[in-house]
C-alpha cells in the first residue's frame, strides 16, 4: 500500500492520504477492504518520512486488529515499491506469499471485489491490473491519425505473482532502472503476461479537492461498505437487528 506520495511538498506539508474521509483516514479505507479477503496475509504500508507518528496512531485507532508493517518510502514510486518488496522478501522467498498486490493509498474506494478480481487474475495469468474504458479519449499517432485501439485508464490495485515481481525489481535495482509503474518494470524484466480486469469507476484517486467530496458521497451511497458482496449487511438492517457496526 503506497502512501508515501510523490515527493511534492508545499504549505503545511500534509499528506492527503492522512486526511479524514467519512470518519477514517483516507489510507485506512482500502486496507480495510483488502483485509476482509481471507487470503490476504501481509499488509505493508509505505509511508513518507515524517508521517510515522500520524500513521501509527491512525492504524491503532482505525485498524487495531490488522497487522500492518510500516516502512518508509523512497523518492519515487518505484523506490517505494522496491522497499515494500524488500519487506516482503522473506515471505516471498519462504513461499508464504504467492501474489503481491500493489495499491495506491490515495484510492480509498478500491473494493474487496476489485482486490479479489486482480488477485485471481494474477494467480491465473501472472499479472493483472484494473482498467476502465475511456471512449471519450481519442489517442492520436504523431502524425495526427487516430489510433483505432481501445483507450483505457489504468487503476490500482495491480497484482503480480510474487517471485517474478521480486526478480524484476531486483534486476531493476541492479541496473538502476526506475519504472513509471509496477507493470512497466514487470514488462521490462519478465515475460509474465499482464492481464486487464474490469476496473471500477468509483475507484477514484484523490487528487483534486472535489475528489474528496465525491469519495464521501460514493462511500455514503455504498452504505460505507465496500467489502465483498456476500459479507455485506446494510447498516440499517444491522441497526434494526441490534448488530451494530
Amino acid at each position: 500500500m503506497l502512501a508515501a506520495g510523490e515527493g511534492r511538498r508545499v504549505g503545511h506539508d500534509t499528506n492527503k492520504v492522512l486526511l479524514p474521509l467519512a470518519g477514517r483516514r483516507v489510507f485506512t479505507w482500502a486496507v480495510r477492504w483488502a483485509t476482509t479477503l481471507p487470503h490476504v496475509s501481509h499488509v505493508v504500508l509505505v509511508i513518507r518520512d515524517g508521517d510515522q507518528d500520524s500513521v501509527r496512531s491512525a492504524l491503532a485507532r482505525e485498524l487495531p486488529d490488522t497487522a500492518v508493517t510500516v516502512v518508509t518510502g523512497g523518492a519515487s514510486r518505484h523506490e517505494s515499491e522496491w522497499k515494500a518488496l524488500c519487506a516482503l522478501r522473506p515471505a516471498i522467498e519462504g513461499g508464504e506469499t504467492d501474489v503481491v498486490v500493489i495499491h495506491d493509498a490515495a484510492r480509498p474506494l478500491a473494493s474487496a471485489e476489485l482486490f479479489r478480481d486482480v488477485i485471481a487474475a494474477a494467480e491465473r495469468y501472472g499479472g493483472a491490473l484494473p482498467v476502465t474504458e475511456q471512449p471519450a479519449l481519442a489517442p492520436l499517432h504523431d502524425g495526427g491519425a487516430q489510433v483505432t485501439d481501445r483507450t483505457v485508464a489504468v487503476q490500482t490495485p495491480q497484482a503480480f505473482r510474487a517471485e517474478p515481481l521480486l526478480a524484476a525489481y531486483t534486476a531493476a535495482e541492479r541496473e538502476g532502472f526506475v519504472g513509471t509503474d509496477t507493470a512497466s518494470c514487470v514488462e521490462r524484466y519478465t515475460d509474465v503476461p499482464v492481464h486487464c480486469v474490469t476496473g471500477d469507476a468509483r475507484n477514484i484517486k484523490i487528487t483534486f479537492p472535489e475528489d474528496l467530496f465525491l469519495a464521501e458521497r460514493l462511500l455514503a451511497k455504498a452504505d460505507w461498505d465496500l467489502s465483498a458482496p456476500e459479507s455485506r449487511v446494510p447498516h440499517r438492517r444491522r441497526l434494526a437487528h441490534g448488530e451494530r457496526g
Partner: protein
Amino acid sequence: MSIEHADLLCERCDRVTEHELHYAGRLLESVRCTRCGHQLSMTHRALVPAYLHDLEQRVASKPQRLYHRALRDPRGFLRTLPGAVLRQPAKFVREFWSLVRR
C-alpha cells in the same frame, strides 16, 4: 467544525497547493486553496441531508466502536468514558450550529 490542511492539485493554479479543509462532524463542508482563494463548498441543501445520513451511520456504528475500544484497553476505556459522554452534547451542538449558521 474541524479544520485540516493538505496538499491537493488546484485546478485554477494548475499545481499542487496547500488547501484548507473545513469539516462539519466528519463530513467535508468546504475546501479552499490558500494560494488563489478558490473555494469549493457543499450547498446547504446538500449538506444537511448528507449530514443526517452520516449521523445515522455514526450512531449505528457507535456501540460496536465502543465495544472494540473497551476490549482493547478496558482501563483506559473506563477512565475516559465519562468525559467522552459529557463532551458529546456540546460536540453535537457545535456541529448543528456550524450547519445552520451557513
